[in-house]
């Protein structure tokens, strides 16, 4: 099936990439006297002027601490901060804005669930299932809570052929003791997109919950938690045009209500005496201390920007670049691409290796040509072991990347090949 065509047939407006590029000040700069070709978006995206200005304006003219302030500035800051929460809730299809907990990022969001939900719900004999292709942030928190509670951590192996999730295998692994299935929604190494609806269907039969690591998916494809039926979603602001240091945990209301606080302090309490305290309502129960106000407002602006483009258009652009990148990279004999070839089941994250060049050397040569890629294990050492490599090179695309930049990437790879064979 020509899925590219079928997506275009839905008459989704195409991104005006030239206009988008003008919105990003950093794309007007040069690196080593060459125009910047930024292909490290899976690590962190660049920021549009709209987001930068919103944060700048907040700090210049609107800053104050949120909540409980009597004065004008505090009320205004609180309003903007809570509006940002509503924007994010709408963006991912949450039923209530209080189902959005601000965190520092995906990592903290997963840790919050692992500790808070885990300490109340896990005991010896219980099982948590993750997969071999998780980011360390969706592995280590579960290892820690399993150690504390005596629960067992099991991992879903990948299909040996295309390294996708084998959902039949997942069905076999599930038992009444399975309490949580925590999977990446889009692999940060392979780009593979997980069929979360199917995972949820399987989980429901066993009474297990489902947490999705949305760090790579939320910025790139439309994500609707209600439609997917997932229980928790963790994601980061800085990979979706927002600032660093802000991210979200979405949790279903009744689950969050039952979970104990994750950290104690100001803002998360209702009353405090010297002997005990009672907790504030959702979402504040999980937000101790002065929050990252500018971060939340900046992320709200990033959501505005993405919604202005339209997430279907964002996905269609990614699909177009993926198809192009797969064929362009495949034309270089020495390059092996990891992950699925079908652009419909993957996001714009390409891990690859050059037969003759170590990823770090490749990254170094590309950098000298203004092309920013990442080289390393991408915080996914178990997956590297599964792939049988120590590290890979990784190019990842976003809304401002173009086919001609992929051409430049390929030309730079070829020239690196020549450099190391001279």
């Amino acid at each position, binding site marked *: 099936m020509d899925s590219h065509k079928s997506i275009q047939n839905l008459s989704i407006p195409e991104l005006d990439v030239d206009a988008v590029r003008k919105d990003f000040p950093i794309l007007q700069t040069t690196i080593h006297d060459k125009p910047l070709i930024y292909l490290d978006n899976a690590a962190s995206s660049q920021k549009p002027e709209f987001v930068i200005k919103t944060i700048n304006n907040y700090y210049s003219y609107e800053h104050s601490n949120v909540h409980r302030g009597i004065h004008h500035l505090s009320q205004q800051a609180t309003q903007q901060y809570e509006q940002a929460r509503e924007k994010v809730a709408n963006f991912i299809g949450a039923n209530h804005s209080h189902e959005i907990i601000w965190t520092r990022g995906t990592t903290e969001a997963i840790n919050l669930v692992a500790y808070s939900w885990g300490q109340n719900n896990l005991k010896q004999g219980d099982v948590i299932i993750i997969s071999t292709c998780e980011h360390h942030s969706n592995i280590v928190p579960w290892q820690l809570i399993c150690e504390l509670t005596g629960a067992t951590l099991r991992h879903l192996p990948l299909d040996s052929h295309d390294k996708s999730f084998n959902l039949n295998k997942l069905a076999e692994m599930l038992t009444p003791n399975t309490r949580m299935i925590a999977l990446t929604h889009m692999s940060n190494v392979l780009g593979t997109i997980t069929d979360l609806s199917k995972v949820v269907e399987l989980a429901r039969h066993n009474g297990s919950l489902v947490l999705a690591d949305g760090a790579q998916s939320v910025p790139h494809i439309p994500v609707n938690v209600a439609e997917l039926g997932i229980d928790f979603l963790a994601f980061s602001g800085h990979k979706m045009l927002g600032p660093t240091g802000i991210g979200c945990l979405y949790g279903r209301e009744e689950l969050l209500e039952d979970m104990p606080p994750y950290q104690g302090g100001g803002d998360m309490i209702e009353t405090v005496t010297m002997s005990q305290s009672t907790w504030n309502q959702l979402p504040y129960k999980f937000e101790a201390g002065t929050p990252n106000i500018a971060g939340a407002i900046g992320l709200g602006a990033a959501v505005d920007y993405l919604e202005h483009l339209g997430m279907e258009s964002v996905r269609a652009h990614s699909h177009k670049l993926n198809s192009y990148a797969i064929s362009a990279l495949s034309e270089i004999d020495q390059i092996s691409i990891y992950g699925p070839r079908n652009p419909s089941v993957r996001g714009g994250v390409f891990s690859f290796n050059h037969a003759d060049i*170590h990823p*770090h050397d490749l990254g170094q*040569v590309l950098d000298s040509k203004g092309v920013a890629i990442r080289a390393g294990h991408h915080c996914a050492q178990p997956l590297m072991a599964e792939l049988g490599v*120590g*590290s890979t090179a990784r190019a990842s695309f976003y809304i401002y990347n173009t086919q001609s930049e992929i051409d430049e990437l390929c030309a730079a790879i070829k020239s690196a090949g020549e450099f190391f064979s001279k």
Partner: protein
Amino acid sequence: MLDELYKEIILDHYKSPRNRGKASKVDFHAHGVNPLCGDDIELTLTVDRDIIEEVKFDGHGCSISQASASILTETLVGLTLDQAHTKIEHVKSLFKGNDIVTEDLGDIEALQGVRKFPVRIKCATLAWNALQLSLQNSATGQSTAYSDE
């Protein structure tokens, strides 16, 4: 710019590594890993009456880490263990730019290009750090691999 890092001598050591393999008699064994980039180096040494007679290396990694290990094997043969300690310290500080060259260092000089590429310094120092740890461990009877994290 790239030529400062990838000098011809470095690329030559990378493509035609010296002393690859395992020492005929293993008196010292060192293992260094850099989990971030997956570099992995094993060094084996034959030492006779305090003099290093043979150094071999094995493993995989980027050109800088492999070339540096190759250069290490050539540098340390013939030295006493004490001299090797001193040499390793000196070379490490050269890579970091903390020291200046006061003697003819042979191929090691070519590795000084890493100074301008801070993230690559650990590639150049991996083999040297691993061997230093192994020599220190053998003095205290411990056995741990060097891990650059």
